[in-house]
Structures are given as C-alpha cells and as structure tokens.
C-alpha cells in the first residue's frame, strides 16, 4: 500500500494528540524542514519537530529526522507460527505512523531481530537492541517465557517493551506496557460468561504443558471453586506439540463436564480439535471455551473442526465496526487477502500507536518521561477493537468478547463485556 492511501481513520487520542491534529499542511512543513532543525519556524512546526538534544537526553538512537525502534519476535522456530502476525501488525502500524508524520516529527526506523523461539536468544537480542542500537522502544515477545527472559535486560538498561500477548498476569514492570489482556480480564470474565449463559457447574481443564496454561489454570481452578462454586472434574497438560489426545478425550467422556476449558497452544490445537470432532464431541453436544484459539490457529485447525466452540478474546477479526473494517482492509492490503488477524495481532498493532501517544504526551523519547506519561492514566487509543485506555498499572482497560466459531474460520461475537479494569495482581491468587 502506498503511503498516501493510509492516514485517515488512524486517529489516536491523547492530551498532545488532541492539540495537534495531523494536517496535510503540517506534514508538508515537516517534510520541508526535515534535516534543518533549530531554524526559526512557526510554533506549530517547532512543536512537531523539536530539537533532538531537548527530547533525547539519554543517548537513544534519535536523530533530527529519525527514531529507531526494535521489533523482537520469533521469525523462525516453533513460535514463528504465532508471532508472524504480530510482526506484520507492528510494521503496519509503524508505516501508518510514518505516513502521518512520524513521532515528534521523526520517522520511525525499524531494526528487526529474531528471537528464534529460544528464550536466551530473546534476552541476547534485547540486550543488543538496547545497548548497541539504543532503540527508543521494543515491540516484541509472545510467550511468557520470552518476556520473563527479556525483563531483567529491560530493567537494567531502562528500555521500553510493548508486549502484545494475553497472559497470566501476576506481573507489572515499569518498563513494559502490556497490550494484551491479563488473566482477570480474559479468564475470570470468560468463566463468568459460561457459568451464567451455559449454567456450567463442572469444568474439565486442559492445557499445554508450560508456564502460561499452568498458571492460568491455577487461577481458573481457584475462581471456579471459590467464586462460581463449581467443580473441576479433571485437569491435564499435554506436552507442547503433542498430537495424541485419545486418552484425554476418553477421560472427558467419562467425566461429562459441562464445560471443557482449554488452553492448548500452537499446532497441538489442530490434533486436539480434529480428534474431538472425530470422537463425536462437537459444538452441538458439548460446550468448550478456549483461551488460545485466534483466527491464526483457526486457519490451521479448519473451521469445520471448530464450529460451535467458543473463544474468549478481546478482539475478533469479524468485529463489525467501521474502525475495524478499515483496519482489516489496510492489513489485508499490506499482507495479503488470506492473512488472518487474531487477537494478539491486533494487540501488537496497538503497541506503536500507544507508544507514539506516550512520547508525544511526554514531549520526549527519554524512557523515564515516557513511562511517566504512560502512568498518567490519560492515554487512550481508538483501536480496531474499540477505545482502549492505558491504565497506570501498564495494562489496558478493555472489553472481553466471546466468539462462537463458524465453519469458515471466523467467529460470531456472541457476547461483549463492559470495560474491565486490568488487575494483574488479583487478591488471593
């Protein structure tokens, strides 16, 4: 897509953004004086393109015309399947920001590093981005394991990370903005919905065997037992990449739970849903709510194996709003008509925009000042999923949606919650 077609409708709102709408005139002026800073010009232009020494006192890679950021995802290895969408979304957002004048008058330059689905590599690359490239922000990570590996590096070098995945919560760092949902927003709200709508009393928990599903299920079990007064009749974890769910499915048949509550990740999902279907368990005779199937996975699983089951996500590609339709159109124009847009992809798209809003509110690229702006509670963004609000605890105030999967690999949104305040440290967990 050419840069000219892009700008409309990607409006962000913040204290600063509201004061300086991006006009064609300003864009022309910015382009005209790019590279000739400190020449007296109108106040409008000065505000848009202030001198570098003033807005970058910590030696970040910011010049008079350019600011460098990092993208750090797995482009290779087992996680590439999931992280490809996030990379695409971040690049789209950055292109659009550049087309509307950049951040504080600076065009964004991207250095992309490959975490290669290997947690030590993530830490290594984050260190490289911060210490050699002096990037102003990093957009990246997907698994909790990669985030946990990068966290000490971020905190030591005072870097900024925009992290897009829904995750288990129980974490908050001043160096991270979590644009995905934490457990209380996704898990508790989703459980509330099945308990209310499906009168669910008994639950069978199944997940892949690593930190996110295990922590999530621990939270879910406690919530089911203490708040919903339901019963967990089985809890199981399958090895990552596992393709054999025969025994698990037989156990599920024996226990006949009201709800199968699933957090199986990645390619295992395909075997899991194909085998469920082959065993005669489908959306008509069994309620299944999953936390880990987005449009990305649905494409691999095949809609016919998934139809009638539910996902708890904050975003679905089928969301019927003008803002989302336009986003879907832009995304497909850049990455191809068949590229799926899942929950995390959309959350990754929010990252660069929220960063731009925070930087412009701070009037500086300095991490401490940007963090202060982020914690002001005044940054919001009109995202494809709807308005999101960056709360002082570094998480977004968002809605939860329940999608019912269709044959074509898209979901019908059957429930949208009210706004849920992020609460990464729920009491008693």
């Amino acid at each position, binding site marked *: 897509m050419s840069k000219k077609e892009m700008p409309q409708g990607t409006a962000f709102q913040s204290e600063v953004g509201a004061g300086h709408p991006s006009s064609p005139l300003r864009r022309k002026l910015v382009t005209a004086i790019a590279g000739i800073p400190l020449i007296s010009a109108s106040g409008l232009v000065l505000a848009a393109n202030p001198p570098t020494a003033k807005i970058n006192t910590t030696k970040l890679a910011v010049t008079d015309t350019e600011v460098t950021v990092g993208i750090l995802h797995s482009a290779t290895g087992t996680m590439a399947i999931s992280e490809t969408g996030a990379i695409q979304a971040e690049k789209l957002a950055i292109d659009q920001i550049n087309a509307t004048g950049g951040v504080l008058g600076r065009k964004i330059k991207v250095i992309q590093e490959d975490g290669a689905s290997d947690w030590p590599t993530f830490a290594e690359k984050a260190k490289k981005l911060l210490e050699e490239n002096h990037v102003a922000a990093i957009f990246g990570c997907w698994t909790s394991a990669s985030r946990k590996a990068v966290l000490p590096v971020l905190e030591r070098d005072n870097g900024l990370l925009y992290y897009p995945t829904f995750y288990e919560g129980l974490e908050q760092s001043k160096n991270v903005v979590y644009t995905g949902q934490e457990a209380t927003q996704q898990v508790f709200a989703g459980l509330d919905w099945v308990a209310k709508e499906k009168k669910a009393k008994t639950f069978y928990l199944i997940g892949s065997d690593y930190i996110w599903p295990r922590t999530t299920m621990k939270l879910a079990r406690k919530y089911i037992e203490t708040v919903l007064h339901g019963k967990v009749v089985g809890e199981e*974890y399958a*090895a990552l990449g596992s393709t*054999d769910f*025969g*025994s698990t499915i*037989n*156990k599920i048949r024996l226990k006949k739970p009201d709800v199968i509550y699933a957090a199986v990740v990645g390619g295992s999902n395909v075997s899991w849903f194909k085998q469920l279907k082959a065993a005669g368990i489908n959306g008509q005779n069994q309620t299944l709510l999953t936390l880990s199937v987005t449009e990305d996975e649905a*494409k691999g699983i095949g809609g016919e194996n998934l139809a009638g089951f539910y996902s708890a996500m904050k975003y679905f590609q089928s969301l019927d709003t003008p803002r989302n339709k336009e986003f879907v159109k832009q995304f497909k124009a850049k990455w191809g008509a068949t590229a799926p847009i899942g929950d995390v992809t959309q959350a990754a798209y929010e990252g660069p925009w929220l960063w731009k809003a925070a930087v412009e509110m701070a009037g500086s690229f300095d991490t401490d000042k940007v963090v202060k702006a982020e914690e002001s509670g005044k940054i919001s963004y009109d995202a494809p999923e709807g308005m999101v609000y960056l709360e002082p605890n570094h998480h977004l105030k968002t809605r939860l949606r329940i999608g019912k999967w269709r044959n074509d690999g898209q979901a019908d949104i059957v429930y949208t919650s009210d706004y849920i305040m992020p609460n990464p440290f729920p009491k008693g967990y």
Partner: protein
Amino acid sequence: MDGYSLSDLWSILVMQGFSGLSLFSVLLLMALGLAIIFGQMGVINMAHGEFMTIGAYTIYVFSKIATNYFPSLMPYYFVLAIAAAFIVAFGVGYVVEFLLIRHLYKRPLDTLLATWGLSLIMQQIFRSVFGAREVSATLPNWLMGAWKPTDTIDIPLNGLFVMLVSVIVTGAVMLFLYRSSWGLHVRATTQNRMMAGSVGINTKKVDRVTFAVGCGIAGIAGAAFTTIASTGPTSGSLYIVDTFLVVVFGGAASLLGTVASAFSIAQAQSILTFFMTNAMGKVVTLLTIIVILMLRPEGLFAAKVRK
C-alpha cells in the same frame, strides 16, 4: 471408578483400546521408513522427520488444487495424493542420497551431522515456500467423523484410516524386504557389501533405491498424519524423537522388532496416560524403555548380523 455405569466403562474400554491401537499405527508408520534407512543401512537420518513433512505438504498442495480447480474430485483426491506423497519423498530421497549420503557410508556419525544440517535446510525451504504458519489440508468428508457401532462408542474414522494405511505399508515393506529380489539384494548388501558386490549386485544402486524407499515411506507417514495433525515447517522435528525411540527400542535391524516396539510403547503410553496425567504417563513410559534398554542394549529383537 465408582459412579459410572458398566456400559459407560465398557465403551470407554473399547475406545481406549482403539486409541492405543491408533497410536500404535502412527508410531509404526513413522518408524518403518527409518527402520529401513537406519536399521538396514546404518544411516542416522536426522532429516527423516522432514521427509514426513514433505509428504504432509504434498497432501496440502493436492487438497488446495482439488478445492480450487476440481471440486468434484474432492472425495477421491486423498488416495491419489498419498501416492504422490510417496513419489515426491522418494524422488527427494533419491537425489539426497546421490548428493550427500553416498559420500558418508563409511562414516555413520557424520551422517548424523550432515542429515541434521539437511533437516535445517529443508525446514527453511518449507518456511520459504509455505510460510511459517501451520497449514492443514481440507479432508474429504468420508475421513471425518466417527463410526458408531453402539450409541456410546465412537471410533474416529481418521484413526481407522491411519491404521489401514499402516497395515498396507507394513505389508508392502515385508514383501519388499523378504519376498522380492530387491529385498534380497538389500539384505545381502547390508550384511556383506564386498561379497554382494562380487556376486554382481550393483550395491550403489541398491543403496540409492533403499534410501529413497525409506524416504518415500516417511512421505506416506506424513501424508497419513494430515488426517490427525497439522503441518508446519518444524513438524518433522516433533516426530523424529519418537521415531528413533521406536526403532532403537525395537532393535535396529529388525522389522518385527519395530512392530513389537511400536505396539508396546503405544499401549503403555495409552494406558498410563489414561490412569495418570499425560506428562506422568510419558515419563513412566520413557523410564521403562530406558530400563529395558539397559538390560537389552540391542533392543527388543536383536538382528542376527555377522559382526
């Protein structure tokens, strides 16, 4: 297991038995090709999983062609695609043997490194051609769903299909190795290369075809798996450990050993994962295998090869 009716327990028993058999046929199918390459030829083929992936992608390509251009052929394409999976994997194996493997027959440990490198190259090729995301073939309707002998028993059709394929392939391999003149040449070459050569067997050609057949069978295995799992660039590395486990546990050069080993591993795992958690079931299975291998380092069925 109180609180469940007898008929409930009976149907679970049947389905659980089937799930064990189904895992058995999966493991057997994966291991057959490797049993030929590793067992007969002594080549440690770390790229074996990637040959399975080739088969799986072949099915994917055929399903795309069928849905987009020949929707009327959709119910039948799968059988054709399996044959194609064999041919493609066979062809690639043939070329790989010529370019890489034949230079390394006297250095088995180097085959490990070379084929591991090969597997990385192949993964990158898959990634470049098909993208990093996992794909999944559209299956014909007759492969979906379940056979219901009674109201409470569901036997997955895709499981039955994989079982059927593995029976056919095992039979074909038996015939190939023990009833055909090719098989005779193969066995002669692996047992005593010099002597085989001096009685007029073209050992180089035997090597090449044997390796390619092993790869072709991997292709069929990969093709069959598309009915139960998805395909990604790195799918092969998921299979390779289980595959070597089956072959080594069975006794490398013995086809019967491979069958016995796949059966016992599958049943143990299936039964244990039903009564324990998934992870514990796997751990106990692996520990048992280790203990048995300590007692019988050659595997369940040691081949009678002159040393």
